């Protein structure tokens, strides 16, 4: 369970940082005000939906970290055989990276009010994301045809479970991204599309990080990293 505890510790430091700015040491019983007094601004100027997405990503992060925690604990048992990674996963990773970069470009061109570049970048991001999902399905297919089926070994089970869960999250994001892309191609001006593109980009970068972590996990690098940490600690 150390992975989730580290994740929560990171989250706790963000919460503590935020709380430190909220005047939690004030004495509200002494601070009644008159109608003419100046009021502190009580809400953040970051758009509400963005904060909502941020909170949601914290939940998604906890979810994947818990899967990873379970992975590490189960890996310690005797019947574990690491699963060979199909080469196509590298292509998929590249596709997801491109998708993320394209969304970032869409975001900056929306900020610069460049409607054409924004449209093309969004479409590119949408297409590459679909490419990623198709590639993931292909990787599953390859593994199954080589005989690495779900219930054979816990490493296989975790691979299908975690990549499947990640794929579902990408699919959910795609629904939103497709709406944004559609609206933009229908002629929505950059100024209005900006916020939703920013949200998509935020979600996409996060899912990219999640993917890189679980890719490293299945490739075995994460284990080396954990071993190094352990040696450093002892």
């Amino acid at each position, binding site marked *: *369970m150390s992975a*989730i*505890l580290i994740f*929560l510790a990171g*989250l*706790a430091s963000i*919460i503590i940082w935020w*709380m430190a700015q*909220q*005047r*939690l*040491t*004030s*004495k*509200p*019983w*002494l*601070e*009644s*005000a*008159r*109608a*003419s*007094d*100046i*009021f*502190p*601004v*009580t*809400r*953040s*100027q*970051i*758009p*509400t*939906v963005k*904060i*909502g997405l941020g*909170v*949601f990503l*914290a*939940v998604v992060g*906890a*979810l994947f970290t*818990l*899967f990873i925690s*379970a992975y590490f*604990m*189960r890996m310690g*048992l*005797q*019947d*574990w055989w690491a699963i060979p990674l199909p080469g196509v996963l590298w292509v998929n990773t590249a596709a997801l990276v491109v998708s993320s970069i394209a969304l970032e470009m869409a975001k900056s061109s929306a900020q610069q009010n460049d409607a054409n570049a924004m449209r093309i970048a969004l479409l590119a991001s949408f297409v590459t994301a679909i490419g990623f999902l198709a590639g993931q399905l292909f990787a599953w297919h390859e593994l199954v045809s080589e005989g690495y089926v*779900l*219930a054979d070994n*816990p490493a296989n*089970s975790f691979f299908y*479970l975690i990549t499947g*869960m990640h794929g579902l999250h990408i699919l959910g994001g795609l629904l939103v991204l497709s709406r944004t892309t559609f609206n933009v191609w229908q002629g929505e001006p950059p100024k209005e599309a900006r*916020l939703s593109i920013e949200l998509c980009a935020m979600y996409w970068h996060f899912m990219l990080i999640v993917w890189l972590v679980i890719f490293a996990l299945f490739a075995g690098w994460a284990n080396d990293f954990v071993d190094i940490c352990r040696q450093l600690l002892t």
Partner: protein
Amino acid sequence: MVNIPSSINDPIPAAEVEDVELYHPHSWWTTYVFSQDAKVIAIQYSLTAISIGLVALVLSWLMRLQLAFPGVFTFIDADRYYQFITMHGMIMVIYLLTALFLGGFGNYLIPLMLGARDMVFPYANMLSYWIYLLAVLVLVAGFFAPGGPTGAGWTLYPPQAILSGTPGGQDWGIILMLSSLILFIIGFTMGGLNYVVTVLQGRARGMTLMRMPLTIWGIFTATVMALLAFPALFVASVMMLFDRVLGTSFFMPAIVEMGTQLQHGGGSPILFQHLFWFFGHPEVYIVALPAFGIVSDLISVHARKNIFGYRMMVWAMVIIGALSFVVWAHHMYVSGMNPNFGFFFATTTLIIAVPTAIKVYNWVLTLWRGDIHLTIPMLFALGFIVTFVNGGLTGLFLGNVVVDVPLSDTMFVVAHFHMVMGVAPIMVIFGAIYHWYPKITGRMLDETMGRIHFWVTFLGAYLIFFPMHYLGLLGAPRRYYELGESVVNPPSAHDLNIFITMMALTVGAAQVLFLFNAAWSLRHGKDAGGNPWRATTLEWQTPTTPPPHGNFGKELPVVYRWAYDYSVPGAPEDFIPQNEPDPENRSREHAS
């Protein structure tokens, strides 16, 4: 979606916050059924939770009847008994308490107490309820599925949860239970995002965090915890569903059942326990923190005195929330884990008693020399304090490994958690209903019926659970369908069991009186007026009662003070509403 000024570059002028754009329903369906109004959603959540809670109440009667009169009620066989236990526990903890505190009170009180028109994401809020309802229906479907609901115990420990010896293990029971939990968590996450972000972004002008009523602090902290803890249950449920349906071995070790080797092998049941309790322990505080918050407000209002140690109350909640994530393995002392872990988790468990005790002292000190009105909400609040202290003290016993090991799996544990997590939060729920019913309906609940309800429930609950401690110390095991006559079940203990069952039936009957009162007062209750308790918080300052769509008339309230200005010296009345400014000629430090 609520439209709050969204451009990062325009700072909000200090004196003006744009009002929100509200979704306005157009038909009967969107007003009362598929409503996006948090108040309607709150009532939908509450009624659903209470209805399913009544099912769980009846299940507890059936269990008690079996324990008191073994063999008399022939339709309760061992399988049914375990199914009753499981469903009773799961429904009460998750589908009643969590849903009612967060979905019910959270939805009703957050926008009203913060001076907001509605939640920030009303559509997701509506979906949250409908997914919750679906989760409840899937859960109930277990009763009608072949093989009945699961009988694995509310903790659903593998491997037994999905073996054929457990009711529902190889039938539909466990599948429906896990699916229902997964749905519940998805639905809750939608609601939870709303509660958190509304507290962050939906507050009225002047409502700083430290001016929020403690009710909101409790619901807010609990929701943050729930958002982070429920994923653990989600992960555990999905993985067990894989083990059961797809034959994987996340949790399932190699097992020979009835002479056949099962296809599973190598899995770790302890892994499930870690995941389950990583959710399960925070869950205790997910239920307790809103209760703490609500009870603070009830005590302050009905003792006409400001809450003692407001800041300390807030900090204690946050600290309890954080600590509750590092105590989970105290539920696993007997699981055979490393003893060093036991030492660590016993220490954290005892540390968490410190902020909790601070809260109890503060409640008592709020009462000290207050102008105590023994109204029904106050009675329930007092009942809560007593019960919670009682259950908390036995928690200190069980938090120590050496005490827990012999007491684990006895009725002592049952008595402990029913006191602390069953009776105590239920006391707050009743107190809160008697307190806010006038706001929700515009009418008071009947006083006489309320008092009878309180005394029977409070005394009855003690008579049920207090003797159970003795049964536990005697060694009477929990989870047993039938004890027969044995060392741990002498005739005197059996008589005690009969007594407990009689009390359980009596307390249950008192709830019928409560339901009748709630229905009867809807029509015939005394007219409540806008602010019958003369309270300071914003929900009592709405222009009409019950509050209209959009909560506050044309203009949103502006907050000038904290929520606890009761009996302020020199003030014309013994309470000053949060939206009433100080007179212009008074200096700001008058209150010091």
